[in-house]
């Protein structure tokens, strides 16, 4: 799956996008966030305040129960501040 990071999540993670293959046990957005926290370093820091992380799967906002699968584009970002 392709992961994208924006704003301060991008800065903390240290990259704007990457392709990853998490273990099969990662089935939902919540699982993926937990896996990210376990990766250590900037990832742990980026996801430490889960309430500040918004998620889009294939460019649509989703909740943490949403499934994730190989081939998905999953974006992580803080609450939006445009306009």
């Amino acid at each position, binding site marked *: 799956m392709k992961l994208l990071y924006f704003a301060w999540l991008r800065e903390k993670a240290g990259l704007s996008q990457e392709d990853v293959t998490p273990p099969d046990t990662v089935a939902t957005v919540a699982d993926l966030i937990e896996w990210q926290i376990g990766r250590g370093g900037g990832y742990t820091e980026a996801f430490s305040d889960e309430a500040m992380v918004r998620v889009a799967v294939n460019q649509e906002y989703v909740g943490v129960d949403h499934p994730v699968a190989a081939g998905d584009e999953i974006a992580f970002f803080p609450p939006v*501040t*445009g*306009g």
Partner: protein
Amino acid sequence: MIRVQAEDFDVGRELEKLSDGNLDVGGVSCFVGLVRDMAGDKPIETMTLEHYPEMTEKALAEIEAEARSRWPLADTLIIHRYGELAPGDRIVLVAAASAHRQAAIEAAHFLIDWLKTKAPFWKREVTPDGGQWVDARSSDDAAAERWIEK
């Protein structure tokens, strides 16, 4: 129509185009968002807008479609800039054209309120103290909340 661009835009010209050749339009309402010069008590040197291009277009199209389903609109326009801006620069223009003022005014208000909480843009301000990502405001959530149909 939706445009996401780095370049500035001409508000007068954009509003004219919205009703050009359509004599059913009785009113055009708009909101223009600008970069302020202060972040609290710190002067802003630059403001940079980051966005998620693939999702931005989709999110703005959904917001526009929602407005057009709620009000009888002849046309709508959303222009949002990205990249580095300075105080006084235009950031965003939303506009709605309709036969009557109420639909135009309400739709323009709705467009900016929903855009602020749904379109994937992020502002980063640079002041003499350094750079800082702008925090989302709960007042923006409250403003969007009032348009949720109950």
